[in-house]
């Protein structure tokens, strides 16, 4: 099949659609969890309504981060790419893979940040006096769960801008290997961030919940949260390593 410039465009638009489409689903669910828990918290503790409302909005903004990353990658795929016939199948595969990586990569972190923010709202309703400590812990926990979304963003940027043009005299066998390796890299980091994102979100959510019940144990709870999320993050780092190998070592 002769390669035409339309094939790069098809891959880029398909990638852009998948990216923001999948990313928007879970970002919406995550923000929705926070809003729901926030509304329930205000019913339980109407006196703290301003504090809960503020926490809810800040938590939602943090939970949207991964969705915004997906939007940025989509925009870059639509307007920020360089179409040239020399790019060949390498560029087409890289654009599709960039969309897949960031789209699936935003699923876990959004859900995790949503759970964490929801538990923070619930916990402020129980202990409005310690609201600031709980909100600080919520932001730290959400930042931890967004780290895996940042891994996906890094891989997407590499796929968008650091893939060379297809060499002219490449054999068909090598061409297939390289294009499929790029798609594999996108799938690897996309699915690989799902588990760690949700897991760290659960840790942060439980930590927020317990800060509201036992505010005196703040330092112990935070230490366990950091230790536990660092260990959960390890599988996301393995996926990042495999993605880099698939992009650069072949």
């Amino acid at each position: 099949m002769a390669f035409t410039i339309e094939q790069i465009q098809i891959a880029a638009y398909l990638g852009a659609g998948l990216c923001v489409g999948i990313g928007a689903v879970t970002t919406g669910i995550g923000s929705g969890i926070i809003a729901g828990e926030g509304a329930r918290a205000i019913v339980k503790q109407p006196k703290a309504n301003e504090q809960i409302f503020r926490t809810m909005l800040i938590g939602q903004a943090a939970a949207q981060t991964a969705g915004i990353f997906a939007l940025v990658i989509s925009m870059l795929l639509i307007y920020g790419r360089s179409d040239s016939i020399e790019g060949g199948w390498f560029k087409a595969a890289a654009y599709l893979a960039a969309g897949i990586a960031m789209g699936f990569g935003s699923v876990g972190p959004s859900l995790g940040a949503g759970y964490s923010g929801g538990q923070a709202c619930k916990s402020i309703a129980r202990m409005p006096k310690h609201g600031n400590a709980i909100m600080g812990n919520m932001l730290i926990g959400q930042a931890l769960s967004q780290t895996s979304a940042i891994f996906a963003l890094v891989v997407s940027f590499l796929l968008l801008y650091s893939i060379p043009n297809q060499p002219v005299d490449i054999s068909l066998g090598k061409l297939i290997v390289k294009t499929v390796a790029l798609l594999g890299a996108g799938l690897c980091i996309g699915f690989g961030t799902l588990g760690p994102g949700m897991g760290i979100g659960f840790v942060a959510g439980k930590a927020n919940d317990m800060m509201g019940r036992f505010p005196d144990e703040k330092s112990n709870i935070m230490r366990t949260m950091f230790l536990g999320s660092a260990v959960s993050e390890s599988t996301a780092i393995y996926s990042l390593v495999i993605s880099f190998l698939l992009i650069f070592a072949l």
Partner: protein
Amino acid sequence: MDLTLAQGIVKASALLGAGLCMGMGALGPGVGEGFVAGKACEGIARSPENASLITRTMLVGQAVSESTGIYSLVIALLLIFST
């Protein structure tokens, strides 16, 4: 070394398999270890006097759940470098 079409397809499938293997393989350990750590936070908050015991149990449990993630890593590396 130049690849024939058939060899290229074999190698390409191995690489796609490596990506899917590590991607899906990271899902379970990530969620599982997060659950362990979340419950450990809860436990330490409820009974802080047992903090060191709970932290030890958490780390041992996470190390065991990590094992499947490491299996995926090993298989992915084998698929990339030895096919």
